[in-house]
């Protein structure tokens, strides 16, 4: 029986967390007319919420209502009607409230997404930092003045908020700041769809928008399924821009829908098959640590995961020995346990896909499993950290994005070969160079076709450093000042104050 109230109490460890279950539109929670969501705790394979309690899903009509609310806010109480210093103050307030409530939010995130609790806490710290970074931009949005001819004309550009933004985010990092923060900073309002696998934490944060004092309609949450809610957003004529992070296949569909509807602007953060390149001069122990982090972090569920390691043949054997040891040190376990490092995959569907890739790797690609290759435990969707060696770079698991804790290790002879291997992919999201040779580092970095190149590091992004893909890994950049551009339109003003003209004009 569906729940008739719009919130529920979730008991996690010793906390009683009240969780809203409705859609959040125009500052209020309300029922949805779309297909509702039963969210599963992937460490157990069982529903998170009490029996009969579901999360409301948004229909096309609900999305319409959210867009109306967002548009109304943008034209009256938000957009450039609210000066940057006030937008800054509100975003800082939101950051402070998330920081205040981090314990409950982390618990919610863990049970909903399967992230181990220590990683959920780190995500919230990052979210707070990202909001604070963009709060600082809100009163620093500048255009240009352009000299034409001081006696008759002055040029200006105004950098204006684009309007109503549809944001569709994935389940691997449900904390949502990368889209929210820059959009709010410049004055856009949002219609926000979390992933159907992880609908909970953003609903809790919606309450904080009211507490922080954002005007109603600035931030709207429409949970739902991609086919219903996501596609309603992508094709909505009243949405000025859609920002999507997720699979390449869905990204394409969104871009097509955007083009066919109102040519809304589109940014996409899609998949990857990123290569970690280790040269002979590298500090091998460090390279191993970074490579292990790069692929096994978040159970491999990272768009920029370093899922291929290319190792120079002279250090290949030693590398394989060391990375096997590193992978086998990883502690899987209950997600609420502070000691657990790797959690389950987010869903049964993902689990099956990854296990299928592992089967393909063994049986069709004929690779050798150095470690792992099996389910871990008997409950939930855990997969052992898995490393394949002795496999072709053209094998399916060497080229397809797996999105799980599966690493492919490939040897190379020369720098040219390493670059050839690294760049032979339709993707171009992350990459890394491990080397102590300063010239080699720059040479290789210059030639890698990827939006991010880590040097003697992996994984860690920075709120002020742009992130995004070459090739089919996406369109546009998030983070840094670059992230602001996604949410701005440029208006050129030609201010004429010169002499009268005659008509027809003598050329």
């Amino acid at each position, binding site marked *: 029986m569906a729940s008739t109230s719009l919130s529920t109490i979730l008991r996690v460890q010793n906390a009683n967390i009240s969780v809203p279950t409705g859609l959040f539109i125009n500052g209020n929670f309300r029922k949805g007319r779309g297909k509702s969501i039963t969210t599963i705790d992937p460490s157990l394979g069982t529903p998170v919420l009490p029996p009969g309690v579901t999360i409301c899903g948004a229909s096309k009509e609900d999305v319409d209502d959210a867009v109306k609310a967002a548009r109304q806010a943008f034209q009256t109480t938000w957009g450039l009607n609210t000066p940057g*210093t006030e937008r800054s103050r509100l975003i800082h307030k939101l950051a402070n409230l998330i920081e205040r409530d981090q314990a409950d939010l982390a618990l919610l995130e863990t049970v909903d997404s399967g992230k181990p609790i220590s990683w959920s806490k780190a995500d919230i710290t990052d979210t707070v930092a990202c909001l604070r*970074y963009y709060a*600082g931009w809100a009163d*620093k949005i500048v255009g240009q003045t352009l000299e034409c001819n001081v006696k008759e004309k002055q040029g200006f550009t105004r950098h204006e908020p684009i309007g109503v933004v549809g944001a569709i985010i994935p389940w691997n990092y449900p904390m949502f700041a990368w889209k929210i923060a820059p959009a709010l900073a410049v004055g856009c309002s949002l219609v926000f769809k979390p992933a159907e696998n992880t609908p909970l934490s953003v609903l809790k944060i919606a309450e904080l928008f009211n507490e922080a004092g954002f005007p109603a309609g600035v931030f709207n949450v429409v949970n739902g399924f991609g086919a219903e809610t996501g596609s309603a957003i992508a094709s909505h004529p009243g949405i000025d821009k859609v920002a999507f992070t997720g699979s390449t296949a869905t990204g394409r569909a969104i871009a097509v829908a955007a083009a066919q509807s109102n040519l809304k602007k589109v940014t996409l953060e899609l998949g990857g098959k990123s290569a970690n390149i280790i040269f002979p001069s590298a500090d091998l122990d460090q390279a191993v640590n970074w490579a292990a982090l790069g692929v096994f972090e978040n159970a491999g569920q990272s768009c920029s995961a370093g899922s291929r390691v290319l190792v120079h043949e002279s250090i290949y054997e030693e590398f394989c020995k060391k990375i096997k040891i590193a992978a086998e040190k990883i502690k899987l376990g209950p997600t609420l346990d502070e000691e657990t490092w790797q959690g389950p995959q987010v869903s049964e569907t993902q689990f099956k896909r990854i296990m299928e890739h592992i089967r393909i790797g063994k049986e069709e690609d004929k690779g050798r499993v150095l470690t792992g290759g099996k389910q871990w435990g008997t409950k939930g969707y855990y997969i052992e950290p898995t490393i394949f060696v002795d496999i072709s770079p053209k094998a399916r698991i060497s080229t397809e994005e797996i999105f799980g804790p599966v690493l492919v290790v490939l040897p190379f002879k020369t720098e040219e070969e390493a670059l050839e291997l690294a760049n032979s992919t339709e993707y171009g999201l992350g990459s890394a160079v491990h080397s102590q040779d300063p*010239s080699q580092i720059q*040479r290789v970095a210059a030639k890698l076709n990827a939006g991010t190149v880590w040097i003697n590091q992996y994984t860690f992004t920075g709120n*002020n450093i742009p992130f995004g893909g070459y090739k089919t890994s996406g369109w546009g950049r998030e983070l840094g000042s670059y992230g602001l551009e996604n949410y701005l339109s440029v208006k050129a003003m030609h201010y004429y104050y010169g002499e009268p003209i005659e008509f027809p004009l003598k050329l």
Partner: protein
Amino acid sequence: MVNAEIALLGGRKVTTPTGLFINNEWVPSSDGGTFETVNPATGQKLLDVSSATSEDVDKAVAAARKAFNTTWGRHSVPTERARLLNKLADLIERDAQHLGELESVNSGKGLRVARDYDIGDCVACLRYYAGWADKITGQTIEVNSQAKFVYTTQDPIGVCGQIIPWNYPMMMWCWKTGPALAAGCTIVMKPSELTPLTALALCDLIVEAGFPAGVVNTLPGLGKTTGAAIAEHMDIDKIAFTGSVITGRTIMKAAASSNLKKVTLELGGKSPNIIFDSADVDQAAMWAACGVFYNSGQDCCAGTRLYVQEKIYDNFMAKLVKLAETASIGDPWDEATGFGPLISAAQRDKVLGYIESGISEGAKVATGGKKWANSPGYYVEPTILTGCKPEMKVVKEEIFGPVLVVTKFATEEEVLALANDTTYGLGAAVHTSNAKQAMRVSGALNSGTVWVNSYGALHNNVPFGGYKTSGIGRELGSHGINEYTITKAVHHNLLEDDASWPV
């Protein structure tokens, strides 16, 4: 003694710092010397404040240098600098009433104005600059991608000497500390000897916020001794000064003669306010009154020369005189007060001297012209002198008091020539309802700030500074940050066999 008792609103006694603040500690001056500070609304002495010697300046610079090399500068993380600046802003906001009272009793500002306007702006300024700390970017520059990797970094300049004036003591403190700290510089600050008290009280908040020792150091003292020692110091990398043109010149000479430290200056002005026939007369009159009488005229960009076009002259002047006569002059403790005394007897006498000079050169007093009789403080009435001509002393020289000189004009060409005929170039304004005229005239005025249909309003994200002898460099906005960074270009050679010798 490094602190003393002072009576604030309602006679409430508090202890307030009066010593030197070096390395997060309070110390007396090395020779025990002090100077007096006075309440300009009563003429009464407030207390004695330590006067820093050049030996004290050496100690402060050493502390600032050590912090820059160990806990601040490039040894600090930008998000941490942002966090500390935001914390400081929060603390100032928390203590706004107390700091407002201290600012008011030391400077003569109305308490309401000090607390709600000055301190409100201060908090906003620090929060604005906190947001810049992790956004100071350099460039990567394509030269030859096969051969070189080249980039710039914007590094903090280093140890900065900052000398601030008495007209907006706390605001000037924040305008200087905000960008300097955001950029990663350390500071040796000399507040005005007339108004040291809030700068000193803020140092307790620096400690409470958690700034490492040596990042901010405050040395009250006299210009001739403390100020000179800072300007001449061989280990200060940059000096920022706000004050008179004369002192600005001295500082720049000292900077050049010592170690060629970088210099920025915010100096005086004699800013023209131009009212065209098409202006909204009521609005323009209020802007004009505010522009010259705010802070009792003690404002570097005060609109002190008024030019009114002939058709509206009589109507406009009638309104303006009425506004001057209804300035809310009073006791600074009174919440209704918007117009306080001048800062000192010397300043008051100087202003009265200028009024005499104007009269002797033929100007007429339309209103004011005298001391305000209702108080022993250093008050001068809002004063308007009409019939002023360009050769008059009162038209050419900065008075720094509530004295407006008025000239009637006929044409746009004529008034532009008059407006620009000055060695200064800090502020200027044009009031008109003609869009083309607004664009033409604002483009033609040689001034660091031009207001159109307003006067005086500044914002933390908009740069401010002077043309000509009004100064060098800009404060506020991103420009403010640029003045505290220095560019380093790094060229990485990628080719292994590129060197050649002999050429």
